[in-house]
């Protein structure tokens, strides 16, 4: 099968089942979707629908029961090169025994970069997320929002072509969430990263995305793919006031709730 070169990720008829004590649990059924290079795609759906399962498949942490996933034309067997992750639980995904700078440098160990290049990467990544002065702190000395910035800095330090985020802003307060959303938009613009995000926050999905994939059902299927045609660059004030914004958030909400 010929694969289109401008697809960063190709999800091809993916199904996922788990064996549980109560029998076979079917989580995903025949999910197909293509993520275009450079796009920001959000995956939304009701709680427990299988969003995180899909994300685990995309990162190569799990293998689908049926179907296949390809990253830039290469079928996935384990976590692929050029992918970085940001998870919801920053306290659990950062190492309390390493400083912020060392946390960021750790994934670069086998990248072939020299010591000074790694130090340079760490510096510039911290600068990108607005934490220039915090390299020598330990994660637990920082606020939640700052810790999530560290996770983002770690992600961009490896210069990924694909960034995968699982509910990245679910554990921070509302004001911090807006700041982090704008940081993610900036990072994506600066590095031209294809970004996939699982979220339960529909407004956030509309604000950030080029496309929203709505999962529904049990087992979950792709209910609809919604294009978000609000112009870039986006801003918390102007974009959220765009008449399209209200229309799209209502539409996605109705799809998630099964009202449409």
């Amino acid at each position, binding site marked *: 099968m010929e694969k289109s070169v401008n697809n960063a990720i190709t999800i091809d008829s993916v199904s996922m089942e788990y064996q549980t004590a109560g029998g076979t649990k079917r989580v995903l059924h025949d999910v197909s979707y293509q993520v275009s290079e450079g796009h920001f795609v959000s995956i939304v759906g009701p709680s427990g629908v299988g969003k995180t399962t899909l994300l685990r498949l995309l990162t190569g942490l799990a293998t689908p029961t049926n179907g296949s996933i390809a990253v830039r034309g290469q079928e996935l067997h384990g976590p692929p090169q050029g*992918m970085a992750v940001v998870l919801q639980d920053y306290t659990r995904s950062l190492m309390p*025994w390493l400083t912020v700078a060392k946390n960021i440098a750790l994934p670069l160990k086998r990248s072939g970069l020299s010591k000074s290049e790694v130090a340079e990467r760490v510096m510039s990544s911290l600068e990108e997320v607005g934490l220039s002065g915090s390299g020598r702190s*330990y994660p637990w000395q920082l606020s939640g929002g700052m810790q999530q910035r560290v996770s983002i800095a770690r992600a961009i330090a490896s210069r990924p072509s694909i960034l995968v985020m699982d509910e990245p802003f679910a554990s921070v307060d509302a004001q911090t969430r807006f700041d982090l959303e704008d940081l993610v938009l900036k990072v994506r613009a600066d590095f031209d990263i294809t970004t996939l995000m699982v979220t339960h926050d529909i407004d956030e999905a509309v604000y950030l995305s080029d496309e929203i994939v709505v999962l529904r059902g049990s087992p979950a299927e792709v209910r609809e793919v919604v294009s978000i045609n609000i112009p870039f660059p986006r801003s918390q004030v102007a974009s959220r006031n765009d008449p399209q914004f209200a229309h799209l958030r209502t539409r996605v909400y109705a799809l998630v709730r099964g009202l449409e």
Partner: protein
Amino acid sequence: MKSAVSRIPAGVVTTVVALLVWQLVGSFGPLHGDSFASASQAITGLSSLARQSDFWSAVAQTVEIAAIGFGISVLIAVPLGVVIGLSRFAYRSTKFTFDFFKVIPPIVIIPIAILAIGPTLEMGIFLVVFANIFSVAIQTAYGVRDTDPVLLETMKCYRMGTWSQIRYARLPAAASQISVALRLAASASLIVAVVASLIGGAPGLGQLLGLLENAGKTSQAYGVVLFLGIIGLLVSRAIVLAQRRVVFWSGK
């Protein structure tokens, strides 16, 4: 008044009270007699021992047995615990056996150890290792298993291999568990070193204690016990301080 009282270290009050009670019981209580030394007699006994070189060589032998035994236990048990902790199967299949060995008091294998090795320094070291190795290995394995799966998955996503995961995640994650196990093991090492010497005839403070007891030198025998209490306390304190520096992130 309150501030003046609270400025006294809490441990001082109970220590003074305990010494006073000891002194009174030894001087007036039913235990009063040749076979029981009061606090002041024990302290006098200890200070007279402290002027004898025999005493200090016995101290050195006991400390040597405890320290070498402790060191060997750590060198074997921690890597062993890591290996066991990495595999679910190994953990489950060794846990039963190790728990079994863990509860055997080292004192009951003294007769076997004497038969096999003889009443020597090496026998003492063997007993100390036996006393510690299973509990330290189990605790290490437990800590390694208990590493946050979110952290490990994050590392996998960044394509860090098994060795990196051990070095940067599993060992540090197990460090609190390991340090607690080591604190207990250090105290146990000292106790077992003395018991090996007292009952098993290995050289050291236990042997000296037996000799003093048989010679009727009650206050000196109590002095040895007092001395053991003091070094036990110092060792435990030293490990707690080291632990705070090494596992500085604990509880954060």
